[in-house]
């Protein structure tokens, strides 16, 4: 049986400049630390949030937010 692909959000910490657009577009999944940099939940993004996650990725001014497909072996981490 084929299952839908699953994704995780990742920030490239070196690329991120703390514009904080992502946290505004996806507050359910991304909060800001006390210095304005995003803290992204590590779990698999729930299907109902995937479109919002893609929107956040597309609007990151530093291109530092990525939606990464999760391989079955990597899901435990």
């Amino acid at each position, binding site marked *: 049986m084929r299952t839908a692909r699953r994704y995780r959000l990742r920030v490239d910490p070196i690329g991120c400049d703390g514009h904080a657009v992502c946290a505004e577009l996806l507050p359910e999944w991304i909060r800001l630390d006390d*210095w304005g940099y995003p803290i992204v939940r590590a779990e698999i993004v729930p299907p109902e949030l995937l479109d919002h996650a893609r929107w956040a990725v597309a609007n990151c001014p530093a291109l530092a937010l990525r939606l990464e497909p999760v391989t079955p072996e990597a899901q435990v981490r």
Partner: protein
Amino acid sequence: MRADGATMAPADRSTGPAGLLAEVSPSGWTTLDEHRRRHPAPPTPTSTPRVDLVDLVRRSGLGGRGGAGFPTGEKLRAVASRPGPRTVVVNASEGEPASAKDRLLLARAPHLVLDGALLAAAAVGAETVVVAVDRAHARALEGVRRAVVERRAEAARIDVRVAAPPSRYVAGESSALVRWIDGGPAKPTGAPAHTGGAGGVGGRPTLVQNVETLAHLAQIVRYGPAWFTATGTAAEPGTTLVTVSGAVARPCVTEVPWGMPIEELLGRAGGPTGQTQALLVGGFSGAWVPVPSALGAPYSRAGLASFGAAPGAGVVVALPEGACGLAETARVLQWFAEESAGQCGPCVRGLPAVAGAMASLEWDGSPDAVARLRRWADDIEGRGGCGHPDGAVTLLRSALDVFAVDLRRHGQGTPCAGAGRPPVLDVPAAGTEWR
């Protein structure tokens, strides 16, 4: 920049004839002739009978001695399995301020390290070896340069060059080191480089290996995996170098079998000079462990794990009664902040914040201040492009746990017993160069 001579601890030489420190001459420097009289020539992949160097190292169970403890045999196998050309980088950055073992080996017993580097190159099929020594470590640089010249007379199929990266803590992170060798700043790239893929030197497979690890590798190839596993513990075979300093009678670099009780290890350095309240284990990016409870613990990854600590770069610093562990930690956190590569927000902004907050705990140990510090630690952890901020956070948390009594006293306005005393930890000035 740190002065090299001042931090070069003498070697405790109570080690077997094949031990790493047996080769460290008390007076100066072991020449190639002396080195070869002391040890038989190691087998190479072309020796008869044929030797599988990678398999030999895997069977020894050797783990990396730069901090992470990754199995060396697995790294060799990974690099060897990728298409060449390949490079071996000898990581002699030793940016850990309380460690002196790697520079000691390079300054006094460089041929042991070069043996290991050349054998590792043979094992993975590398044509190039780069020995990267922190440019502030003048005696290590001199030692290895002389050793390379001594070997130049021999027909060599492997090109060995010595490079001197800038004196920065994160320059020793594998991706930073590779980036610098390739002409960039010595700053981490966020992509692991130590087992090569595309992240290695010139975009090619690269083995980045710590100095001490390579010295062990040479002796394992010479004397066999069974010789190596005869000491240490079943899970952590062999011996390991430890730099012991702080309030001990004879600060030194010593070689101990894994699993030696910590109290005995301190004895190698002449024992504590007085009452000890805690030990810093692993290095600045290590953890404080309480005394006396930790004294009976085995010095090993497994033994230290129950105290939330790890061997790290092989460092033990004794903190005497009367010193302020919180103030010591605040100074180290400030150093962490200044040693940031300045690339990641949580490190650039977070480390100065925790350093400042830790310093203010010296007079305000209120539960709110402590809670905020713990929250910041949780927020910073795992959010850098390298392990630099995580190292600071580990140290910070251990300080809040181990010095909890001092925290309460400070919170009640009781003057700190350590106030006005000279600091115990030798915290260097942060580096200034990236290229």
